């Protein structure tokens, strides 16, 4: 469903990768692998449409993502380095606005439930500035529970999380893949999801 054809990425003078091909279908997890600076984040940003590939195309359901922008964005969600959590809003408001802006109708019960599921039940109404780094990332991850996106694009989702949260995210991923979702992800940690054999996508210039 998601397909990259002969992709090349050039940042400044350096070619980060070239002739990169990949395909991702329902129920699959694709792990992008490579050293720091090998272009993992750049690849994910290309898949989101933030970066235009120097060469090659990215296709969603057989259409170029630039052409199918609206339907593509409606079916995908991105979790980046910056967690998109506003310090001045509470955890609840953050999640609520994020969902509404993405066009997902939510009620306060669903929002509370999602935050509770990620272990933030006791700080629903605290401004995000008083949350720790890991807690802010949990707020951002709670989005994954409420979006009905088929494609998850996750850039280092496991950093700054404690053991419990690590387990939680992996079980979320497992459920998502079982339900026919797909995920494109970078991480330096080991990913263990029962019943899922992640495919690897190594990056080299």
């Amino acid at each position, binding site marked *: 469903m998601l397909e990259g054809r002969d992709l090349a990425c050039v940042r400044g003078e350096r070619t980060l990768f070239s002739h990169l091909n990949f395909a991702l279908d329902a129920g699959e997890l694709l792990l992008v692998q490579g050293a720091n600076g090998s272009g993992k984040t750049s690849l994910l940003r290309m898949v989101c449409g*933030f970066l235009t590939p120097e060469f090659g195309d990215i296709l969603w359901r057989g259409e170029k993502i630039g052409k199918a922008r609206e339907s593509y964005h409606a079916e*995908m969600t991105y979790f*980046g380095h910056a967690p*998109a959590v506003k310090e*001045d*809003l509470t955890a609840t408001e953050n999640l609520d606005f994020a969902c509404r802006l993405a066009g997902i109708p939510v009620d306060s019960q669903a929002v509370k439930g999602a935050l509770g599921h990620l272990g933030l039940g006791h700080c629903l109404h605290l*401004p995000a500035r008083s949350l720790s780094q890991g807690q802010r990332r949990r707020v951002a991850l709670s989005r994954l529970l409420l979006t009905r996106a088929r494609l998850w694009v996750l850039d280092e989702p496991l950093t700054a999380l404690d053991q419990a949260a690590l387990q939680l995210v992996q079980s979320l991923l497992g459920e998502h893949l079982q339900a026919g979702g797909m995920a494109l992800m970078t991480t330096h940690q080991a990913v263990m999801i029962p019943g899922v054999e992640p495919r690897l996508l190594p990056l080299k210039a």
Partner: protein
Amino acid sequence: MNMLQIVNVVLRRELILAMRRRGDVLTVLFFFVIVASLFPLGVGPDPKLLRLMGGGVVWVSALLAAMLSLGRLFASDYADGTLEQLILTPTPPVVWITGKILAHWLVSGVPLILVAPILGVQFGLSGEALLVLVVSLLLGTPVLSLIGAIGAALTLGLRGGGVLVSLLVLPLYIPVLIFGAGAVDGAMSGLGAEAHLSLLGSILILAFILTPWAVSAALRISIE
């Protein structure tokens, strides 16, 4: 979800954020008052001279204050990743950009309009001139937010973006200044302000239609 709903959500979110950070709003307002109040100290307290200058001084101060507030428009969303999430929503970017600009005007433009008559009285403007001043600001300050948004979007993430944005945006503000201050002048000299005000109005309509597209393109470049 329809587009008006999205504008509504963006507006509500921005207003809540502004309420939680009232200091930012007040800073711009005080800047406006102080800049306008410096002129009488600089040029001397001659009432005739001050009356002549009043409209122009208030307008220049409004221009500078509007520019000062541009940093808030996209910078924090850019830094914390919200901007990426906004771009990834299925809604066309023009929709939420319009919402954000509207919110910026409500938070930083409207307070200036409310305070302007007091400054006008300080300069001894007549009742009619005060009315024209308020109307011209009502038509002109949204243009400042709209045009300023292009500059704010283009300078995202650049070092020294604050200075750069003023170099980019101030020249584009000139027509607004000319017709805004001209309207007040016209009212005082008895020539009438209608011509200036209708020109300001047409600039506003044009800017409202065109600038969100330019901002959308600029954000695309900045986020790469």
